[in-house]
């Protein structure tokens, strides 16, 4: 790439108390966020959680009922989309079918009344950046899905937006291409240092690409943090179950001291956790314990490694997935759990019907604070 053609004027984005209602339903409710300069930030959530509406509010396609949106020190809440310089990439790509690739990419530059020579230069550079040099004369309909995606990205980047808004950009691509485009996106984003807001319902994409994630549900942000924080310390049951797969056990606290917590879970008995954060709940308080399937291991019926939580059960189903084997185990108390173990070398996985002991380390037990309603 050499000298960078796009001097990104990345902005900090602040969303303050933004709410938006469609009829009786709240699409976005009292959202406050600060997205730092050059950050790759993701709105993650199921469909209908308000993530796209929030993105459209940042882009200016929707006006919030309450709250403010600021780019750096500038209040943009009431600015129309064409005065914001917030580059958006639509889920459908929205390439204009009546214009060639060159004309599509040049569109925004022509809006900015740049001299023709400069437009040509920058279009060439933008297409090179996304790996589409030489495609200038093509029509969007002559491009593959992946190529259309790149044109859409080039068209948005070429105008040097203050913030890059991506609305489920990978959802129309097949699995292989999705991964490749994801890498490409992070590469370009890092190279340009542009503030990026990414909207997706795919937790793998969110965990893999983002610097920080806001998990959304019902128009609200339920947790905000790095991918590691969101994955390892879900703040709510919703987050634990939406981001990855979790076994969640509701129980009652019996003992609590720094670094050690014992809770009684009906049907299983006493489970031990070693919380390293947050305020400890008092004995007698209800608590949710969450354990990731890959933190669990399976042992023979009579085995019990020392220092671990253990529960006996029966294998109901097992699925071989190459690198791992996924089990569904019915615990003796009647509770089903999902267990994921690395495929053992030269050893047969437990067959359905086998009696096993499910074990997990207290350090892998995640405490979820009770829902604050």
């Amino acid at each position, binding site marked *: 790439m050499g000298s960078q053609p796009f001097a990104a004027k990345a902005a900090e984005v602040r969303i303050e108390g933004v709410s938006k209602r469609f009829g009786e339903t709240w699409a976005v409710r009292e959202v406050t966020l600060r997205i730092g300069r050059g950050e790759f930030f993701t709105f993650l959530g199921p469909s209908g959680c308000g993530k796209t509406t929030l993105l459209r509010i940042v882009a200016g*396609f929707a006006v919030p009922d309450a709250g403010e949106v600021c780019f750096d020190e500038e209040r943009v809440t009431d600015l129309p989309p*064409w005065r914001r310089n917030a580059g958006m990439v*639509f*889920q459908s*790509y*929205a*390439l*204009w079918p*009546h214009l060639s690739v060159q004309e599509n990419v040049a569109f925004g530059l022509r*809006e900015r009344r740049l001299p023709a020579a400069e437009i040509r230069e920058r279009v060439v550079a933008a297409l090179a950046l996304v790996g589409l040099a030489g495609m200038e004369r093509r029509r969007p309909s002559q491009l593959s899905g992946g190529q259309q995606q790149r044109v859409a990205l080039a068209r948005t980047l070429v105008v040097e937006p203050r913030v890059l808004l991506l609305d489920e950009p990978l959802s129309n691509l097949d699995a292989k291409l999705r991964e490749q485009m994801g890498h490409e996106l992070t590469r370009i984003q890092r190279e340009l240092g542009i503030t990026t807001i990414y909207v997706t319902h795919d937790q793998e994409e969110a965990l893999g690409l983002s610097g920080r994630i806001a998990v959304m549900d019902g128009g609200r942000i339920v947790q905000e943090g790095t991918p590691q924080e969101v994955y390892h310390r879900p703040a709510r049951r919703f987050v634990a179950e939406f981001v990855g797969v979790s076994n969640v056990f509701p129980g009652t606290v019996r003992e609590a001291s720094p670094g050690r917590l014992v809770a009684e879970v009906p049907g299983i008995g006493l489970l031990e956790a070693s919380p390293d954060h947050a305020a400890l709940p008092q004995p007698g308080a209800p608590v949710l314990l969450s354990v990731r399937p890959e933190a669990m291991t399976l042992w023979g019926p009579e085995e019990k490694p020392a220092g671990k939580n253990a529960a006996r059960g029966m294998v109901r189903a097992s699925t071989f997935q190459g690198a791992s084997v996924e089990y569904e185990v019915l615990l003796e108390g009647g509770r089903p759990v999902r267990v994921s173990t690395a495929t053992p070398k030269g050893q047969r996985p437990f067959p359905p019907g086998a009696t096993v002991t499910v074990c997990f380390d207290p350090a892998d037990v995640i405490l979820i604070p009770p829902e604050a309603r």
Partner: protein
Amino acid sequence: MAGAGLLGRVRAIRVLLDPVQMALLLVLLTILVVFILYPLLQVLAVAFTADGRVSLIHLRNFFARPLFREALAASLLSGVLAVVFGSLVGLPLAYFSVRFQFRGRLLLQTLGILPLVIPPFVGAVAFQQVLGRSGMVNLLLQEHFGVTIPFMEGLAGVVLVQTLHYFPFIMLNTAAALANLDPSLEEMAQNMGCHGFRLFRRVTLPLVLPGYVAGALLVFIRVVDDLGTPLMLNYTKLLAPQAYLRITTVGLNDVDGYVICVIMVVLSLLALWGARRYLSLGEYATVQRGTTGASLARPVRGWRLLLVWVVSGSLLALALLPHLGIAVLSFARIWSFSVLPVQWTAGNYGEILFRTPHFVKNTLLYSLLAAGIDVLLGAAIAFLLVRGKVVGRSVLDAIATMPLAIPGVVLAVGYLRVFHGWDFPGLGQPLTASWLILVVAYSMRRLPYTVRACDAAMRQIHASLEEAAMNLGSNRRRTFFKVTFPLMLGGLVAGGLIAFITSSVELSSTIMLVPRMEMGPLAYGIYIYMQSAVGRGPGAALGVVAILLVLAGTVALNRIFSRGTGTAFKL
């Protein structure tokens, strides 16, 4: 290996020559060739031969006659003017009805289609009553200001009537294109800094252009084709009336009539060819529909709302003037040289219902028959086009589409040339002496529309729906009757209704082909009645019947599609 290759090839050929499909194809091709291609070729043959040899002498003669040159220029001019004025009326209404939210929007969408339900030649009579030399408006002007305005004189009157009759084609096609536009295409442009009129010019307009061009093309072709309006307004210096006059007064062997027909076909073809560039891009609007789907219609308030109301209100009022005029006229005993009728009566309806009931009866008979034939042919053609694998389907498609570019006058001339003077097999008399000729003409003229409707219906049925039935043990016949047919039914009925509606007010080919007075349909009846002053009342009453017929058909059609008004009239 060689054996397998041979076997494969034999199998491939067997598919291409599937006997059942082949037989169907041959029957359809025979019908289309006899009733569309051959008559057209006959017209061409007469126009381009002299003394048994191919010759351009007749064509040269055509251009040597000032009257014909004027007629050609006037036809072109009326077509272009109708498109221009039709756009001035239709485009704002299309934009308002799709992009603005206001009280009366639904009314605009509903009333906007009404001009199409009045046959243009009926509208012409009504316009005479209202805007003519001694019509309502001019009488008032004369009384109060001592001046008159010649709205309806010469070509101006023809263009006025045609503009106000045909503009809904432009309005409906443009509105459909606008409504189908993926909103993210415009949002993206806004995101890039584009808005207001620039946004319209750089993105919206180019994307809507195919829809607009389709509508404009329809207007142009219909205007060139229109025989009734100029005859009613007594302006004959146009191609269609010239061809009609040559054939009916000079005779069936007058070569000039045929040359005029050829010129008309060429005009239609040129228009089609010119529009093709845009029509082939017709998929624009729906290529990539975004998921955001937010409606772009926005509320209008204040002076903008006032502007929208005034513009659409006055345009609609003008366009609905003929409906009012014809209704008033149908209840008038005497209405001439007065602002409103001096005496009222219901006798005009008595006249058409009891003294000349055959006009209405014939119309129902002919149009229903034509619609039935069209549904059968359309379904069979669509089946071969969509599901068939047999060779020669593209030829079928090409011939079935031809009537779009063949003016009614031309087809009628071809029929007179081909079927006159010899007994049609099984009929005992020449086809042109039987009322069946009208049914044939109507069904062939409307065939492209039914084929299109059936084709669309067929394409919507994913092959997997049929395969699922077969997979569950249903044979080909049962699959067709239990799955395919019920799913196609809507499309079939719609196609039939389109054929019925348009056939019931067809005039161009009717005037030339009606064998005897009592075999005439409604449109013919109106034409005959309107020739005399005393006949104008009953003629208007027939006009009201025609309006009601078309209106009923249109309402039924919209119920089936339930996708808003005007589906039948979109290209």
